[in-house]
């Protein structure tokens, strides 16, 4: 018979394994949910595309007589090719799940490749692949709508010989702007916060007098700041940084600079604490050896201490980048929520996290798009993580 102690030991081990399994299952479930929902929408167009769609409105009043355009060899089974107009259509869904008719091919000699603009007599517009068909009114007043589907659209185009009104739009809803904003925020925030944070940590650990009350209070305050909810920093950004940046640059709303300053305040305590933790792990022997070799304190700090602390500082950077990319509450106040394609640092725009918030806060929350953006955020974080690990391995002795 096995002893009580043995059974108790095994039971405890089992319990601990089960608890960690629960945590693992939750993590895997979250990833599975995000990937299964978002991966269908994930495409190069989503990443590089504009958010705002451009609508083109044109007409073609000349009777078309020929009907001999050749279908391209790359035409798939799902595409419908109109031999009269030299254009092909396909059924599709946009990022919000609405049914649309995509234009997948336009022959270079097609009349549609160059038609007069309805809104501007002197201009012409070009219908091209990648655009979506919104409405068409043929000269006999037959209407074509996206809900008719690609097959019906093809039938109509093949039978009708002139168009009174055609409206197409570029696909839109892409996240390029938000992606670029996020990268801007990461870089600008780190440029502001990293030197301040690292030097503060160096002061606190290397130069500040030990057992000094003021220094200890300061350190406690910094630790407390780590736990302050970011929305409070967002209010600070709106109340302090936006007016300051506005008076300096003439920006009239929340902007990227005020956003970066707000994020810098948020990550500053993280950088200070984790850099100080790293400095604590650097053996005192290095300091002593350096000083015994006739180096002064600055040389010791910069050549030995700071150099040995680089891996630790880099992981602080990694934590901060995660925080910056994931931050949404504070940015809603400090930058605003309008999604932009052209990124100007003195104007509003949104980060990917706020983009998700914006997608989900509409009348119909778009889970698929939110998940697709989440996947991109995860990929960005993963790439950063791996590159930091790589750099640390390269420079660490």
């Amino acid at each position, binding site marked *: 018979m096995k002893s009580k102690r043995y059974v108790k030991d095994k039971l405890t081990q089992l319990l601990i394994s089960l608890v960690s399994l629960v945590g693992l299952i939750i993590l895997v479930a979250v990833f599975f949910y995000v990937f299964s929902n978002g991966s269908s929408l994930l495409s190069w167009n989503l990443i590089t595309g504009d958010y705002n769609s451009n609508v083109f409105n044109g007409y073609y009043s000349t009777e078309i007589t020929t009907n001999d355009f050749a279908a391209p060899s790359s035409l798939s089974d799902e595409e419908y090719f109109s031999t009269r107009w030299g254009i092909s259509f396909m059924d599709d869904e946009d990022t919000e799940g609405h049914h649309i008719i995509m234009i997948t091919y336009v022959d270079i000699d097609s009349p549609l490749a160059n038609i007069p603009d309805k809104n501007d007599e002197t201009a012409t517009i070009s219908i091209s692949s990648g655009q979506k068909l919104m409405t068409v009114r043929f000269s006999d007043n037959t209407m074509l709508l996206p809900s008719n589907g690609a097959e019906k659209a093809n039938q109509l185009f093949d039978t009708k010989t002139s168009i009174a009104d055609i409206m197409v739009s570029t696909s839109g809803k892409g996240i390029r702007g938000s992606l670029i904003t996020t990268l801007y925020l990461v870089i600008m925030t780190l440029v502001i916060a990293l030197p301040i944070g690292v030097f503060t940590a160096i002061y606190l650990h290397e130069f500040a007098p*030990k057992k000094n009350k003021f220094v200890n209070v300061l350190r406690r305050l910094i630790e407390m700041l780590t736990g302050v909810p970011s929305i409070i920093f967002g209010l600070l950004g709106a109340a302090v940084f936006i007016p300051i940046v506005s008076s300096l640059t003439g920006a009239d709303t929340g902007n990227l600079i005020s956003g970066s300053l707000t994020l810098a305040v948020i990550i500053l305590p993280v950088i200070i604490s984790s850099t100080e933790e790293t400095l604590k792990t650097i*053996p005192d*022997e*290095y*300091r*002593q*050896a*350096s*000083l*015994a*070799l*006739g*180096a*002064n304190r600055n*040389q010791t700090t910069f*050549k*030995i201490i700071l*150099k*040995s602390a680089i891996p630790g500082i880099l992981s602080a950077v990694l934590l901060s980048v995660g925080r910056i990319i994931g931050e949404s509450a504070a940015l809603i106040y400090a930058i605003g929520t309008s999604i932009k394609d052209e990124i100007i640092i003195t104007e509003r725009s949104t980060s990917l996290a706020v983009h998700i918030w914006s997608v989900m806060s509409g009348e119909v929350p778009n889970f698929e798009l939110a998940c697709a953006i989440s996947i991109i955020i995860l990929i960005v974080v993963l790439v950063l993580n791996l590159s930091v690990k790589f750099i640390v391995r390269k420079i*660490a*002795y």
Partner: protein
Amino acid sequence: MEKVFTIKKLNLKYGEKTALLDINMDIPKNEITALIGPSGCGKSTLLRTLNRMNDLIENCHVKGDIKYEGNDIFSKDFDVIDLRTNVGMVFQKPNPFPMSIFDNVAYGPRCQGVKDKKILQETVIQALKNAALYDEVRDRLKESAKELSGGQQQRLCIARAIAMRPDVILMDEPTSALDPIATAKIEDLILELKQKYTIVIVTHNMQQAARISDNTAFLLMGELIEYDKTDKIFSNPAKAKTEEYITGRFG
């Protein structure tokens, strides 16, 4: 006999605790002086006072004076950085910096403002040769110093100190973390270095003191009990306490 250090009425306190009491001794040039005594007797403290490494410890109060080549090292206009470039130090635990072997040895000269690559190269190679390490590391100067064995690391630390071209090298139990073979190599090296440098060595190992040193100082509870030629101390000590200690009756 020429004297490098002249110590007069040296008293040292860590806060309220007395670590050194009325120490008077001279350290002769180009000889090996060993400091022996049981743990906590103040031998390391005395050694670290010689290049003022005790300055780094808060609550450390020093009274009395130490003259280094005639200059009072505690006087206000004495440059401690200058002292430390002339008085090198090797620690108990090998403590190479986390950088390449070359950069470790070049660290001291670089901190003094030497930038010329050729001069640095020559200094480093010469220092490594003097520390009897060059033949073992000549092909991997760019590799991490942390990959060397413990004994090699300690010889690297000696090379690092030599690269400063000091007059004195202080060694704080330099072999206590090493195996017997590495210890023997370091001891040979110390005897070799005696030609050019004055060496003060703290050691726990009495055989080591007997083997390599010219003079031996025995400390007990912060007091200098006896200081004489090593032969004399080990064959015919003047004080009963010294005899008890070296014969292993306490310690």
